[in-house]
């Protein structure tokens, strides 16, 4: 891959990250009642608030405040929680691995399930296998992740007793126990997305199977499966790649809710608590982190596109 292209893309990445972080910073500046008042709580008087504002630099222009906030953020100082008077970084540091683990496991599940099923359905288009898959797909796609989580809790947790609902095990305690507890919530996140993935890939495979190069491959004596895996798969994945990038963002968003269903103390739970407590430094930090993740995933997908589709040039 060419260095210039990567450098250019990295430049765009940094600019996007700056814009996104500035917008999230700005969003929290328009909140009625400022940080000084929040910090003082009931003890607020006009003079005290003014003094604290001066001290916190709240009277300076937005851009200056953003610059300072960014410099602190990059250095690892992500502010202090209003509710817990604790550095936000410490609060988030221990939660981040949980959400990352959920995201990764769910994403792997989606890949492992949707690719073979999508290929299978596309290959047998119109046959009973494809029809059955399409119907199941359509239904699964319509189930909200958190309701699926409740159903799983009921069926596998309460009736079959395969896991203990609410029995979250911290990764510091037992890593394998932690991973096992994450399986049901990850399934709840992954299944609906997986159904969409199957639908996308199926459509893409059906379209690619009509291509001339497929005819060429058969005329060379390729077996059906060779045509599918060597020729069609890579072409069919190109449009699906964008969907996967969006899926990662969706998984993170979905995990916010699923964490509540399975009482997992991850980033999502903290975000919701902080929103209820109006603990803005924490909310802002989590939002910026997730936004950063979304931007970085898009960046990686851009690079992947280039690898998988040689037609895309540096422009």
């Amino acid at each position, binding site marked *: 891959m060419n260095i210039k292209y990567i450098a250019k893309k990295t430049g765009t990445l940094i600019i*996007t990250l700056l*814009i*996104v972080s500035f917008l*999230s910073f700005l*969003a*929290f500046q*328009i*909140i009625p009642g400022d940080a000084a008042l929040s910090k003082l709580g009931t003890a607020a008087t006009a003079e005290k608030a003014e003094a604290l504002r001066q001290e916190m630099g709240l009277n300076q222009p937005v851009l200056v405040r953003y610059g300072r906030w960014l410099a602190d953020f990059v250095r690892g100082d992500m502010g202090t929680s209003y509710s817990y008077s604790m550095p936000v970084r410490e609060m988030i540091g221990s939660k981040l691995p949980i959400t990352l683990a959920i995201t990764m496991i769910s994403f792997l599940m989606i890949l492992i399930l949707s690719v073979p099923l999508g290929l299978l359905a596309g290959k047998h288009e119109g046959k009973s296998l494809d029809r059955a898959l399409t119907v199941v797909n*359509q*239904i699964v*796609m*319509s*189930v*909200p992740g*958190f*309701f699926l989580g*409740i*159903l799983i*809790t*009921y069926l596998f947790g*309460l009736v079959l007793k395969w896991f203990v*609902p609410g029995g979250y095990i911290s990764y510091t305690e037992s890593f394998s126990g932690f991973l096992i507890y994450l399986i049901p919530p990850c399934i709840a996140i992954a299944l609906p997305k997986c159904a*969409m993935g199957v*639908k*996308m890939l199926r*459509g*893409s495979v059906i*379209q690619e199977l009509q291509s001339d190069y497929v005819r060429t491959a058969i005329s060379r004596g390729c077996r059906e499966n060779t045509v599918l895996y060597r020729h069609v798969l890579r072409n069919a994945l190109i*449009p699906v790649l964008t*969907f996967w*990038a*969006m899926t990662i*963002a*969706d998984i*993170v*968003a*979905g995990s*916010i*809710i699923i964490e*509540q*269903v399975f009482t997992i103390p991850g980033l999502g739970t903290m*975000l*919701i608590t*902080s*929103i*209820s407590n*109006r603990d*803005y430094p924490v*909310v802002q930090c989590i*939002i910026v982190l*997730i*936004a950063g993740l*979304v*931007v970085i995933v*898009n960046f990686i997908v851009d690079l992947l596109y280039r690898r998988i589709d040689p037609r895309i040039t540096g422009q």
Partner: protein
Amino acid sequence: MKRKERNYNLILGGCLAALMIAFMVVGLFYTPYDPDAMSGPSKFAGPSLQHLFGCDHFGRDIFSRVLTGSGTTFFVAVSTIVIGGGIGTLAGAFTGYFGGWLDEILMRINDAVASFPSILLALVFISILGPGKYNVILALGVIFIPSFARIVRSEFISNKEKDYVKSARLMGASHVRIMFVHILPNVVPTLLSAIAIGFNNAVLAEAGMSYLGIGVQPPDASLGRMLAESQTYLSRAPWCAVFPGLTVILLVLGFGLLSDGLQKGRGSVSCWR
């Protein structure tokens, strides 16, 4: 390849969606029981002829609660579509028809917003505005503007060069007249499909936020909140969870099929988020 195939998606989706809309509209005006009336004896009563969907931990009739909850959901989703679809269509029509620097800027913002999951953006809004039905509508409405704008914009771009627009221009029709009398009706099929998808997204987002306790607030009934409450009594009264959840599924399924059916024949691989 010309074999006529019945558009089952459209038929099935249309019927299901119509049924669910009827259900939700009824929920706005009528319920068999007072959805908030508590009753000791019928606490955790299972589904029966008297209480079709059973009763919850306060002995409230779940069928009535699902009806009013659906009504709230319907109200939120429709208001969201009106805000997002209305402003989005206007923005898309103007940027698509006129192009130029405004178009450039709006599309860049669009791209940025589109890559973020809507529920996350909604959470940012809610954390600033505070929870509640109207704030949810405002947040979701604003968030949906870009997606409508994008769809309408691309339709306007492809339509504005067509002959019927050129002839209308020759007849001396004004830009506004061309946009809304001539082009807009041609955009309607695409717009309808987008509305169905948007409706689904709104239903899912509202249910999700209410489940988290930061969406619709009591006394307004909401399916998401019912699901959250039901979790505590899941082993005792699973029907408290099943019926609100099923309602959401049928809603999303109906509108999803409808949107697929509307898109069929346009050759696009569709997917809703």
